[in-house]
């Protein structure tokens, strides 16, 4: 108790010197607390998004493999014929779904249908490459169809479909198409053609010319103006079986596998290759999308981690230097104590106590201030990294389709992390404490070396 009391007094006796030490420890602790809080909160946020997006997987074509295969064939180095990609049939998709990594699976199929009386809402200039979506199509049965073209998208689970996931499109009237022949059209298309829930419309399949009567079960609205600009308000949604009524060739199938966890994505991919998945395909679990969303947060984490390392090393070195200067100034005091019989370890122990007192005060202060400033600092860094990401080419924003690794059109998201909820927890406190204790230990080790080199008689003679 006396030692601690004396060390407290020593801190006050050497208040000017220890103020410098305290400021340095405050800076190190402040940056540690900010970096640790932001990193900890960022990890939770990233984990959330991984769980949100990363646990669904689709099977897409791999452009790298396609390009390599094409080059081989083009260069004549391959003995094989022209590049051929075996489409994945429905049974194979079902076989892939039979996996311990898969929690559930939903299938989606799309075909192009037409109706010559139905007007396409083409208010948007961006769709002028296909004015009115009107075109002449030669059907497989030789029948020529003249009409407006619509995408008929069938899914057995719209909750996992990128068209409806996270409110990309929102049902505003009626019901989702559950029965065969039910369809969901956009409010724009409905008002444009004076259609309402319950009306029946006939559509022709563009490939085989089959005509099927479809009943409007509900209306949806596009969540963003960008979606409308892409002409997505002309999409018609139905159930999976309804699309099958138009065409028997189910080649445009997408299976969305909900995995047990995002972490099993690579294991699932390997399993599919083991089951015979062509190397032209890969398992897409929205990594691009995830990177797009979490990129700024990860960049912020990286920046703060690097800053923490730099501050720790630089601050530690400065702290050692300042402590050596303090020890030199207190050499006489050390000499007297040693001459009176105080052991080196007792002198060192006193210095440790002094450092612990200063460190504790500075760390507590830094923890409070750091906790307060963590939120604005992280918001500011994330905002700045969001701007950097937007300015980086190849990174898409908006809700339009984007070319990704699979070469397929994939729905992206407007979702951007602008803030993370920063909060201090026990782990942050523990790591901050550990960082400071390491600094105390290092400085003490150096101090101990300094004290050991000094012989009391020599110090007193110098005086």
């Amino acid at each position: 108790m006396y030692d601690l009391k004396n060390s407290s007094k020593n801190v006050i006796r050497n208040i000017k010197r220890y103020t410098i030490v305290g400021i340095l420890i405050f800076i190190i602790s402040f940056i540690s607390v900010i970096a640790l809080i932001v990193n900890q909160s960022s990890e939770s946020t990233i984990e959330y998004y991984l769980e949100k997006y990363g646990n669904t997987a689709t099977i897409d074509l791999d452009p790298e493999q396609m390009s390599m295969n094409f080059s081989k064939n083009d260069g004549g180095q391959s003995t094989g014929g022209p590049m051929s990609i075996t489409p994945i049939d429905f049974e194979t998709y079902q076989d892939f779904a039979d996996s311990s990594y898969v929690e559930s699976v939903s299938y989606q199929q799309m075909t192009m249908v037409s109706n010559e009386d139905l007007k396409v809402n083409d208010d948007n200039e961006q769709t002028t490459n296909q004015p009115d979506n009107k075109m002449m199509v030669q059907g497989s049965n030789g029948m020529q169809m003249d009409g407006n073209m619509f995408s008929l998208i069938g899914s057995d689970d719209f909750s996992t479909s990128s068209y409806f996931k996270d409110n990309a499109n929102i049902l505003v009237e009626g019901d989702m198409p559950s029965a065969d022949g039910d369809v969901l059209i956009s409010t724009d298309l409905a008002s444009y053609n004076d259609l309402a829930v319950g009306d029946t419309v006939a559509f022709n399949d563009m490939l085989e010319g089959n005509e099927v009567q479809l009943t409007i079960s509900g209306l949806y609205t596009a969540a963003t103006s960008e979606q409308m600009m892409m002409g997505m308000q002309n999409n018609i949604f139905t159930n999976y079986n309804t699309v099958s009524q138009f065409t028997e060739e189910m080649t445009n199938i997408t299976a969305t596998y909900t995995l047990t966890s995002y972490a099993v994505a690579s294991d699932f991919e390997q399993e599919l290759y083991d089951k015979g998945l062509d190397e032209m395909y890969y398992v897409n679990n929205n990594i691009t999308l995830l990177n797009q969303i979490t990129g700024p947060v990860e960049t912020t984490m990286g920046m703060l981690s690097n800053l923490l390392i730099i501050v720790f090393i630089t601050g530690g070195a400065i702290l050692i230097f300042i402590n050596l200067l303090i020890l030199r100034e207190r050499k006489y005091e050390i000499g007297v104590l040693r001459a009176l019989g105080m052991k080196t370890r007792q002198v060192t122990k006193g210095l440790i106590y002094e450092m612990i007192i200063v460190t504790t005060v500075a760390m507590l202060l830094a923890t409070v201030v750091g906790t307060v400033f963590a939120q604005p600092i992280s918001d500011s860094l994330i905002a700045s990294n969001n701007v950097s990401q937007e300015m980086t080419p190849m990174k898409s924003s908006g809700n339009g389709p984007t070319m990704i690794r699979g070469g397929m059109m994939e729905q992206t998201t407007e979702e951007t992390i602008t803030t993370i909820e920063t909060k201090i927890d026990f782990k942050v406190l523990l790591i901050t404490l550990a960082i400071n204790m390491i600094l105390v230990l290092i400085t003490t080790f150096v101090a101990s070396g300094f004290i050991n080199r000094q012989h009391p008689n020599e110090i007193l003679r110098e005086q």
Partner: protein
Amino acid sequence: MSILSVKNLSYAYDGENNVLKDVNISFDAQKTYAIVGKSGSGKTTLISLLSGLDKKQSGEIYLNDQEISNYDIDEYRASEVGIIFQRYNLLNNFTVLDNILMAMRIAGQEVSTTKAIELLERVGLEEQMKDSLPLNLSGGQQQRVAIARTLAKNCKVIIADEPTGNLDEETELDILRLLKDLADNEGKSVIIVTHSNVIAKSAEHVFSITNGVVNSIK
């Protein structure tokens, strides 16, 4: 009875010229000793060795019939031998009281403010001075604090290096009386290195050092 004794003690700083040559002396409890000699004669070297501030090169030093190399040298300085320096060597940013309490702590004694104040009064200082910083005191007062600090360690041997070297005559006599009192009434063996004739005259035994050779002259 001899409490501290030296046998065949020699010491050379450069390994060749002996500052001390084959010294054989002993010190008893309850007695005051003066060691006199010219500057550079080896007086300070002798008390540095006796107090454990320097390591001996050859010969033996016994405390209570035990060779001091058997002691932990820090503990030897802490609780067996008390040193009073010419320049006091107080901790200047410690208060008078804290200087004494620290000595108690180092010696492994109970750290008692009451006892420290008693010691201050014992050396002729008032209680109010306990919170003063040493540099605010006169030389004589600082030396009294240094003596109180030595007493706080409760050592049997007190070694003083020119304790009155920086003091006026009146103060010198006060300090001398105090040191003699420690020997006479508290049973300490008090060894004083001095240039002062007053101290030499009042000491019960006087050793003279000339070129490293010690002779008993009283």
